[in-house]
């Protein structure tokens, strides 16, 4: 019986766009939750709420979003002070300016400086700027991260290998309402000669959440 593998259109040497191996769910035993998803999806299509094509398009749109989008925005802010000012004033508009289709996302960029290191969490659920950065990492959604980020951010950052000086304050943002946050990490030293694309390659996903810093140049 033929079965669809739309994800194979996005194979990168057998790995998904995120660089992880694909989960082999099409051959595992059917779970109750998968039954529910299939039934729900079919009923929605039959009742005209959506279509198979719209569902596939949404999956592809989400797959196309990744931290690379955020990295491009950060790199531009590093090289272009006017863009940086626009980013800090309205990060959603600045992202759209760069051509990213982020939908109705209310995005706020917060800047890391010598005085302040920002860390983003959603203690109530797992809100994340998905429409720019793609789906959040699993750890972001864990009880451990969500509980401890607001209580002992420095200890949490140590687990991520990030050590913030006592002279720098940590500012934790708990995304309790509709705003979503992206951290503008500090530009690494010794990068004056790098162009935007090279700079973007230094910007990690974790540096835009605050659990990391941008990589130093090679």
């Amino acid at each position, binding site marked *: 019986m033929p079965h669809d593998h739309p994800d194979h259109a996005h194979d990168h040497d057998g790995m998904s766009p995120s660089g992880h191996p694909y989960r082999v769910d099409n051959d595992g035993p059917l779970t109750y939750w998968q039954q529910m998803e299939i039934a729900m999806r079919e009923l929605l299509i039959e009742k005209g709420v959506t279509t198979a094509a719209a569902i596939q398009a949404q999956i592809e749109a989400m797959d196309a979003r990744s931290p690379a989008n955020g990295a491009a925005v950060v790199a531009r802010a590093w090289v272009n002070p006017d863009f940086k000012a626009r980013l800090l004033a309205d990060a959603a508009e600045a992202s759209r300016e760069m051509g990213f289709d982020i939908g109705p996302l209310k995005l706020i960029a917060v800047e890391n400086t010598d005085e302040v290191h920002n860390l983003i969490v959603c*203690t*109530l659920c797992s809100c994340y700027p998905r429409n720019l950065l793609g789906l959040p990492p699993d750890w972001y959604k864990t009880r451990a991260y969500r509980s401890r980020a*607001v*209580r*002992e*951010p*420095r*200890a949490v950052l140590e687990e991520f290998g990030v050590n913030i000086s*006592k002279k720098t*304050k*940590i*500012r*934790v*943002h*708990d*995304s*309790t*309402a*509709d*705003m979503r946050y992206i951290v503008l990490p500090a530009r690494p030293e010794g990068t004056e000669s790098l162009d935007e694309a090279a700079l973007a390659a230094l910007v990690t996903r974790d540096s835009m959440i605050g659990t990391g810093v941008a990589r130093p140049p090679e």
Partner: protein
Amino acid sequence: MADRVRIKAWAPPGHVRAPWYLRGKAGVIERELGAFGNPEQLAYGVAAARKPLFRVRFTMLELWGTAAESPDDTVDAEIYDHWLERLAPDAP
């Protein structure tokens, strides 16, 4: 001089967007964010009143006392107006 507020120590059942760890805690309004449909009503599929939303900043000292890693570190959270009690500038 930023407005000082305290998050009400309410404890209702149901869907609210004021985290438990902030209830009864004092902070300052960092900025007003505009008015939005009350999520506590939207969650139940009823028409939602628009409520002002504020970003409120709390020190780790206020939240965790002597257990705070670094007392001057802060937590910002977005809280709707109906959860805020306005404090006098010199209130404890």
